[in-house]
C-alpha cells in the first residue's frame, strides 16, 4: 500500500493576514485598537508636521503663527544659533567642521580594526586635538575664539568627548584599584565609587561649578567649563569603573594565573591578558554608558552653559518666535535622537554579533 501524503494548501495572503492579526476575537480587538492608535497618531503628526506646516521664512513669523501646523521657519531662521550658539558668525564654518571631526572620530572608533589600545587612543587624541584647534583658533591664521563663546551642538559634543576622554582612563584606574589585593586601597576606592554613584549628576555638576572654587587654591580654580567637564568625567568614571570591573570578573581566574606562571609582570598581565578580555566582556554595557552620558551632557544647562538645549531655549525665547517652542524642541529632540539612536542600535548590533561567537 502506498500512502500519499498531501501537504495542506499554502495559505493565501488574506488567510495569512487573518492568522497573524485576527486569530481570536481578543487578538482582533487588540489589532484594531493598535491600528486605530497608530493611524490617529500618524495622521495627526503628518498633518501638523508636513501638510499644514510652513517651511519658508518669506512670510515672517506672523504668517507662520497663523498657520494651523508646524512652523519650521523658526528652524530656518534660527538654526545657526541652535547649532553653534554665540560663536562668531563669520567663523561658524569652523564650528561645523569641528562637529564633523567628532562624528568621524566616533564612527572610526566603531570599526573593530581600531580596537587596540594604541589605535583608539590615536584616533581620539587626533580627533580631540583637531576639534580644539578648529574651535579655539589662534594658530594657522585662524581667529582666536575663547571657550565662553562656544555653544550649541558644538559645545555639547565637546563636553561629551572630553568627558569620555578623561573618564575612560580614570574608570580603568578605579576598577584596577577596586580589585586590588590590598584591602585598604580597594575599600577606600569602593567608598569613593559608591559615594559618587549615590549622588545625582546635577548635584555633582553644581558642586564642581559653584562650590569647588571655594575649596581650591586660586591657581587651581581654572575655567568653569573644565571644572564641569571634570565633574562629569568623575561621574562617568564611577559608573564605567563598575562596568569594567564586571568585565574583569568575567575573565576566568586561570587566565591571570597562567600569565603569572609565565612570569609576566603586573603591567603585562593587566595590559595584555586581563584588560583586552575584560573590555570585550564589558563592550555592550560600555556603549550603553556612552549613550547615557551623551544624553546627560544636556544637564550642564543647569549650571549655565550655552549648549544645544540652552541655545534652543534662546532661539525661541526672545522676540518674534516666542510661539514656536514645540518646533524648536522637536528639532533638538531629533538631533539627540539621531546621535543616541544610532549609537544604541550599534550597541545592540555588537551584542548580537558577540553572542554569535559564544554559541
Amino acid at each position, binding site marked *: 500500500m502506498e500512502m500519499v501524503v498531501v501537504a495542506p494548501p499554502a495559505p493565501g495572503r488574506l488567510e495569512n493576514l487573518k492568522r497573524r492579526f485576527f486569530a481570536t476575537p481578543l487578538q482582533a480587538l487588540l489589532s484594531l485598537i*493598535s491600528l486605530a492608535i497608530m493611524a490617529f497618531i500618524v495622521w495627526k503628526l503628518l498633518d501638523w508636521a508636513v501638510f499644514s506646516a510652513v517651511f519658508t521664512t518669506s512670510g515672517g513669523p506672523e504668517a507662520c503663527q497663523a498657520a494651523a501646523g508646524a512652523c519650521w521657519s523658526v528652524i530656518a531662521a534660527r538654526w545657526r544659533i541652535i547649532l553653534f550658539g554665540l560663536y562668531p558668525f563669520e567663523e561658524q564654518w569652523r564650528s561645523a567642521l569641528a562637529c564633523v571631526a567628532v562624528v568621524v572620530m566616533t564612527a572610526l572608533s566603531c570599526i573593530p580594526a581600531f580596537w587596540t589600545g594604541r589605535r583608539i587612543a590615536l584616533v581620539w587624541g587626533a580627533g580631540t586635538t583637531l576639534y580644539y584647534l578648529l574651535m579655539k583658533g589662534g594658530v594657522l591664521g585662524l581667529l582666536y575664539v575663547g571657550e565662553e563663546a562656544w555653544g550649541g551642538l558644538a559645545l555639547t559634543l565637546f563636553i561629551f568627548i572630553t568627558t569620555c576622554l578623561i573618564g575612560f582612563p580614570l574608570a580603568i584606574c578605579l576598577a584596577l584599584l577596586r580589585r586590588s589585593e590590598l584591602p585598604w586601597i580597594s575599600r577606600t576606592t569602593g567608598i569613593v565609587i559608591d559615594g559618587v554613584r549615590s549622588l545625582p549628576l546635577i548635584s555633582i555638576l553644581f558642586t564642581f561649578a559653584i562650590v569647588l572654587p571655594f575649596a581650591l587654591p586660586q591657581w587651581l580654580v581654572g575655567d568653569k567649563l573644565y571644572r564641569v567637564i571634570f565633574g562629569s568625567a568623575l561621574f562617568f568614571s564611577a559608573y564605567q569603573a563598575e562596568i569594567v570591573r564586571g568585565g574583569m570578573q568575567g575573565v576566568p581566574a586561570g587566565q591571570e594565573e597562567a600569565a603569572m606562571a609565565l612570569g609576566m609582570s603586573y603591567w603585562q598581565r593587566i595590559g595584555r591578558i586581563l584588560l583586552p578580555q575584560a573590555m570585550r566582556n564589558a563592550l555592550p554595557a560600555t556603549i550603553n554608558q556612552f549613550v547615557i552620558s551623551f544624553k546627560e551632557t544636556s544637564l550642564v544647562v543647569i549650571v549655565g552653559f550655552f549648549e544645544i538645549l540652552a541655545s534652543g531655549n534662546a532661539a525661541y525665547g526672545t522676540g518674534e518666535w516666542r510661539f514656536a517652542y514645540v518646533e524648536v*524642541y522637536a528639532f533638538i529632540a531629533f538631533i539627540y535622537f539621531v546621535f543616541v539612536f544610532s549609537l544604541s542600535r550599534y550597541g545592540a548590533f555588537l551584542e548580537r554579533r558577540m553572542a554569535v561567537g559564544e554559541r
Partner: protein
Amino acid sequence: MVSLLRNQKVRNALLQVLYVGSLAALVLAGIVIARRNLAEQGITSGFDFLYKSTGWDVNFSLLPATANDPYWWFFLIGIINTLFLGSVGLVLATLVGTIVGLARTSSNELAQLLGRTYVDIFRNIPLILQVFFWYAIITHLPTPRAAHEALGMFLTSRGLYVPFPNVGGIAFAAAILAVIAAIALPIWIGRTSRLSQPFGERLGIQLAAAATALTTAAVILALGRLPDLPLLDFPALQGLNLKGGLRIPPEFSALAIAIAIYGGSYIAEIVRGGFKAVGKGQMEAALSLGLSPWRVFTLVRLPLALRAMLPILANQYVWLMKATTMGIAVGFTDFFMIVALTINHSGQTLEAIGILMAGFLAINLSLAAVFNRINKAIALKGNQLRG
C-alpha cells in the same frame, strides 16, 4: 632601609597608607581652604544656621511653609517634596512601563510595533529636554479666564485646578491610607488563602474587607471635615484668577509627566526582559494542567517574571528618585533646589553640600533596604511546592 622596602609586607602597608593618606589629605585641604575662604566673607561655619529663619519662600510644599520658618524645616520640606514627586513619578512610570512592556511581549505584532516605537522614541531623548518641553506646553496653555473646563477641573497656564475635599490634613492622609488598604487587603487575602478554598467564600471575605476599609475612609472624611464648608471645594473663576480647589502647579505636572514617560520607556524594557526570562516550559506545563490562560498569566507567568524584574527595577527606581533633581530646571523646590537656594542665600556652602550628600545617601540606602526585603520575601524558597 632599602632592604625594608624590598619586604613585600612593608611595601604593601606603605602603599596603602600613602593612598588613603593622600586622598584624606586632599579632602582635608579642600575643607580647610573652603573654611578660610568662607570666613573671609564673614560666614561662620557650623550648623547654627539651621535654626535661623530663611527669609525666602518655596513654591510647592505639602507642609505649611512661610519665609519665617527655619532652614531645617525647609530641608524637611525639600526631602518630602522629592519623595512625593519621586513616588508619583515612580507609580506613573511603572503604570506606563507595564502597559508598554506588555504590549511589547504580546503575541500581536501591531501592538509590539506600537510598544517598540514608543520605547525607541522616548528612551533616546534626554529627560531634561522632555521636562522643558512639557513645561513649555503647560505654561502656554490658556489663562484662567479662557481655560478648558471639564468635570469641575480647569486646565490653565497656572496649573491644573481640581476639586478637593474640605478636610483637615491628617484626616485626608488617614483616608488615603484607608483607600490603599481597601485595594491591598483583597489582594493580600487572595494571595494567602489556599486554592482549595471555595472561590465564592474567598470572594465574600475579600468584598467584606474592601467594604470595611472604604467605610472607614468615609467615616474619617466625615469626621475630619472642616466646619461650615461644603464637602467638596470646586475651583471657580474670581476676577482674573481661579479660587478654591487644589492647584497642581505646572512645575510639578511637567516633571511628573516627563518622568512618567521617560521612566516608563525604561521600565517597559525591564518588564519585557522579565517576561522573556520566564521559561516556555513553565507556561506549557501550566496550560497542560488545564489552567485557563488568565490563571496561567496570574499564577505562573507574572510571579516568575516579577522575580526576574525586581532587582533591575529597584535600580531604576533609585535612578528615578535621583531624577527629581531636574526640578531645579523648571523651579520646583525639591531637596536639591532647597540646597542650592540655601547656598545662594546663606552662604553655608560646606554644610549644605554635606546635608545634600547625607540626604541622598539616606534615600538610596532606604530604597535599597526596602527592595532587598521584598526581594527576599518573594524569592523562590528551595524547590518545594507551595499551595
